[in-house]
């Protein structure tokens, strides 16, 4: 009976999750395609280092280590969650115990990590709710964003509490017959009084609470900034392998320039107008930009180091990706008449960027902010002719004199004289 109920709930949870993924897939289909470079081995190494090794989040040593422990704990505990799903369908108890000594390792580290993750999450909640950490503030972090952050942490906290309850009651019920080792739970067991309660009922309660929380949390994630638990690994895998300041040239412009330089621009058949030049709305961004937006967990490490933001300008690199996600959600519903550039992101934000790449350097998941900003500048300049006056003057100088200032090429050797 229990198995049947569990299986039905499992199928329903997966079905709802797939439906959410289907919508996200449809959003990806709206975006611009860029070819994959096929550098799989290089990318796997990068993923091992940055995602699994957490090298970039550790640039903040203390809080980075807390996150790394939570992340590594999450991986170990996920093995336990898979076991619970198999137990639930089959009606077995601790089915992975067939793994023998390896199971002892999985169970022991899972138990230890449950407490470590709980401690980490309590610290994270305290930082979010009690302390005023500057990077958790900002115009783009609305009340809804902050609630979302607290809900995600709340879920994880309840997940860990139910897992700990599960382990302690299981140790109580089976003693030394229990497969695996649960060092901290076994150590804590004497502090719990089981005389007035039915431990079997408690065990079922914790088991069902934990697994149902997993199903609910998994289905909450596609609508949360915490979707990064799904996206972080693929996002690092597909991230930029080039130097940070590399900005790809636009191939569609290359064709036009080739025509102009060959002097055939007026005779040639009109080029097939591709999409628009640069980025105005979410259909102009690449699938990787959208993946960045789904990956961003709004930690604010980018905004915290942004020279424009530090000195009080409107630009906040984090906001770009919060905006992309919001605009994509809107666009997939009805969304006509509005645009990413203009209705969400202002020109003032875009022109404040120094392209210093401090944001991209700091992003623990290798999101690239400056290149997106320059793609939006490309739209403004190439499609609208809309640049600040001083920049238009700079363009004119380059066109006329081959230098961004008003000096003649004839004077290019003056430095040898004076």
């Amino acid at each position, binding site marked *: 009976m229990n198995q049947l109920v569990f299986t039905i709930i499992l199928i329903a949870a997966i079905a709802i999750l797939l439906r959410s993924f289907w919508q996200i897939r449809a959003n990806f289909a709206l975006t611009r395609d860029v070819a994959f470079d096929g550098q799989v081995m290089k990318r796997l190494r990068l993923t091992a280092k940055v995602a699994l090794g957490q090298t970039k989040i550790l640039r903040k040593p203390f809080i980075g280590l807390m996150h790394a422990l939570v992340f590594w704990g999450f991986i170990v505990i996920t093995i336990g969650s898979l076991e619970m799903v198999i137990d639930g369908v089959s009606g077995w108890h601790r089915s992975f115990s067939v793994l023998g000594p390896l199971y002892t390792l999985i169970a022991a580290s899972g138990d230890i990590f449950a407490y470590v993750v709980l401690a980490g999450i309590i610290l994270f909640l305290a930082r979010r709710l009690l302390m005023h950490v500057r990077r958790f503030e900002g115009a783009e972090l609305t009340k809804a964003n902050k609630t979302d952050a607290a809900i995600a942490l709340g879920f994880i906290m309840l997940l860990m509490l139910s897992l700990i309850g599960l382990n302690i009651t299981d140790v109580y019920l089976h003693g030394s017959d229990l497969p695996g080792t649960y060092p901290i739970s076994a150590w804590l067991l004497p502090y719990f009084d089981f005389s007035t309660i039915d431990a079997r009922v408690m065990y079922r309660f914790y088991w069902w609470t934990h697994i149902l929380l997993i199903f609910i949390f998994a289905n909450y994630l596609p609508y949360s900034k915490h979707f990064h638990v799904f996206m972080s690994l693929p996002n690092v895998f597909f991230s930029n392998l080039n130097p940070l*300041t590399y900005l790809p*040239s636009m191939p569609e412009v290359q064709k036009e*320039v080739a025509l102009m330089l060959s002097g055939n621009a007026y005779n040639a058949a009109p080029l097939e107008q591709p999409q628009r030049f640069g980025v105005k709305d979410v259909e102009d961004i690449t699938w990787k930009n959208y993946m960045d937006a789904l990956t961003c967990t709004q930690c604010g490490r980018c905004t915290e180091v942004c020279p424009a933001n530090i000195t009080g300008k409107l630009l906040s690199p984090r906001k770009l990706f919060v905006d992309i996600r919001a605009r994509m959600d809107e666009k997939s519903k009805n969304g006509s008449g509005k645009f990413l550039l203009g209705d969400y992101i202002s020109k003032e934000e875009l022109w404040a960027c120094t*392209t210093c790449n401090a944001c991209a350097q700091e992003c623990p998941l290798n999101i690239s902010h400056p290149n997106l900003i*320059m793609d939006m500048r490309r739209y403004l*300049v190439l499609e609208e002719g809309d640049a600040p006056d001083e920049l238009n003057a*700079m363009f004119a100088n380059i066109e006329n004199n081959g230098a*961004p200032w008003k000096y003649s090429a004839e004077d290019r050797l003056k430095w*040898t004289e004076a």
Partner: protein
Amino acid sequence: MTKIDVPIMAEVSAQGHQPEYLFWVGCAGAFDKRYQKVTRAFAQILNAANIDYAVLGTEETCTGDPAKRAGNEMLFQMQAMQVIETLNGYGVKKVICTCPHCFNIIKNEYPELGGDYEVIHYSAFIQQLVDRDQIKVNLEGLKNKRITYHDPCYLGRGNGIYEAPRKVINHFNIDYREMKRTKSFSLCCGAGGAQMFKEAEKGQKEVYEERTSDVLATGANIVATACPFCMTMLTDGIKFANKEEEVINMDIAELIAQNLME
């Protein structure tokens, strides 16, 4: 000052010689009054080390970098194609750049447009000359000076060159200090991404003020830079903070050139 002898590519080429290096001077290197001195300093170093090089002189033109960063891809590619045609015409193989923005764009963004060169930043080049004793420098020339170094974004974070300029500076017997935000954590001077050519957006202060406060906190007498835009911004920042008596901004090439021994 007297005129310094600099080989011009067109002339050298007409004599049937192919110089080993092209020294890419850049627009700031050619026209910015302050930075012209840095260009001179680096040319002096090249001459002192008897390097086989040439400059394009009047044939040089903007790489297109500020246009590209400001969104004008069309203008950028027109400039890039022109530069690549000139360089390929002379059969250039190795390019030395002083400006990190020129360095970045020629090294990373010209190959896909048909311009493939070995691109060297002058900081790495000077380091090599010093390491191999190709130039003699008075190591006591900056004695009792406290020096700090500001990382240009397009050199450091952009292309991972953190050590070469530091090695050049620390070659001298000096009191070297890092700023609190340094290397990959370094703060921008505020001029990148075409900001050099426009007023900053509305805010509480200028980025160069913020960065200058990092410089001043080290108590350094000299803040060394390796980028023309950083030089403009930090020189302004020091002026703005009224600290011109206490600290001066110098390029790493100037530190070496002023202490060259015959």
